[in-house]
């Protein structure tokens, strides 16, 4: 067996064990642990559904309002929540780096995989539950949906890795994360589509890779919506760029992580 393959097997084993462990620590602490993962996005959807109702607004292009909001919030969370969990991977798990073959990257991969899996289930539960009360479940192109969700998750992991490594060098990362990323909630297409905004605004908005992911998911989900501006290649470029920066930083700070 080549050493590369053996290394990959060790890493796979470690990530698997970490993901199982994260499941316990993330959801096992409260009696309603798993339920909270579902309730939080549900509350977001409920709130904005209320806004839409008050403002007499409809979801655009014949989309149903609850799936419309769900397909916005879930990909967004898949990117941002994964990035947040990833950025705290070292601080929350210092004890784990005690074991020589557990690396920062494994912690981020395990946390990311758990977020992506959880949010995918949440999306299916919400839209499935909604379908019970309406005309039925519609999913136009599952592969396109999966691509959008997967890219959002990978983007979150790559961003989390950069933040995590930068966090070892300076404490200010935690402080700038809020002001830097919270605005993304309003400009990532959670409540609108790229097709529906003015061209000049759109040109700027399309620099945001999360908007592309949301557009891809909606395009795949709704037979009536066609995302003209979604570009998977653009998101992949972001992921590759961030991963390169993140991995380089991680190598640089590796010897600086204080275990004790």
């Amino acid at each position, binding site marked *: 067996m080549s*050493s*590369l393959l*053996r*290394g990959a097997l*060790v*890493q796979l*084993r*470690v990530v*698997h*064990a*970490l993901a*199982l*462990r994260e499941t*316990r*620590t993330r959801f*096992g*602490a409260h009696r309603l642990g798993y339920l909270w993962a579902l309730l939080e996005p549900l509350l977001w959807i409920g709130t904005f559904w209320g806004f839409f109702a008050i403002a007499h607004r409809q979801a655009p292009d014949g989309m149903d309002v609850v799936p419309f909001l769900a397909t916005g919030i879930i990909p967004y969370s898949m990117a941002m929540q994964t990035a947040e969990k990833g950025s705290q991977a070292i601080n929350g798990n210092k*004890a*784990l*780096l*005690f*074991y*020589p*073959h*557990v*690396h920062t990257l494994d912690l981020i991969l395990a946390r990311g995989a758990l977020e992506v899996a959880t949010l995918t289930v949440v999306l299916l539960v919400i839209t499935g539950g909604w379908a019970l009360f309406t005309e039925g479940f519609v999913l136009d192109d599952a592969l396109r949906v999966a691509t959008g969700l997967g890219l959002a998750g990978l983007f979150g992991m790559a961003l989390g890795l950069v933040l995590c490594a930068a966090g070892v060098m300076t404490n200010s990362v935690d402080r700038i994360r809020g002001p830097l990323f919270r605005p993304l909630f309003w400009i990532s297409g959670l409540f609108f589509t790229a097709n529906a905004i003015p061209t000049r605004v759109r040109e700027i908005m399309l620099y945001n890779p999360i908007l592309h992911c949301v557009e891809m998911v909606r395009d795949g989900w709704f037979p009536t919506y066609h995302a003209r501006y979604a570009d998977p290649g653009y998101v992949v470029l972001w992921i590759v760029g961030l991963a390169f920066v993140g991995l*380089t930083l991680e*190598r*640089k700070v*590796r*010897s600086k992580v204080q*275990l*004790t």
Partner: protein
Amino acid sequence: MIARATPGWAERLQRLWAPGDGPSSAAPPIDAPGSIELRGVTKVYRTHAGDHVVLDRIDARFDQTESVGILGRNGAGKSTLLRILGGAEQPDAGRVLRHGRVSWPIGFSGGFNGSLSGEENCRFVARIYAADIDYVVEYARAFAEIGEYFRMPVRTYSSGMRARLAFGLSMAIDFDVYLVDEVTAVGDSSFQEKCVRAFAERRERSSVIIVSHQLGTIRKYCDKCAILRRGRLELFDDIDEAAKSYEAMS
């Protein structure tokens, strides 16, 4: 033309990405399991008061089925050396060559997640080392003798209970090299007896490296001794000789 004194960014990037001690260095045996070699290992901690050289160009070889004790005062860098031997920390310069499976530094508590139970922690460690989960859990439970606490969160444990579990867990997994950090304080005398017996049994096929600031511990467990002082490691074949040198220090 002016020669550039500092390396350019491309060069530094290249150096950063050069292959080093990656995750595969902790992988299963290649040849002569149970030996570790240090070549010019240096570790420097940067503090506000300036650079502090903890390990200074250490060359050493720990052979198969040897049990070596490393003596040193508090703060001499014993735990750092152990973490570098295990691979949890990287040296600033030099290389560590490991043959065989090396344990994590076995000591008081490190590596347990407080919100998980002792059993869950054992399952996790068994998984990452690809050991038989049921066997590891059962062995650790029987060895630690902490009763009902085994199923309770580790944060409710006393430090003695943590150490018992940590010790039992590390004994449950077959390592070629055991790295041990200050075993003396673990448990009462009957538990210590058990540790001595467990080690004696392991010593037939594995090597043990123990760091301590107490000569008594080293005498009990080891047949060779080294002294770590001022960043240098000095090896003695005879423990009495080391004892003389160590006592002369104070």
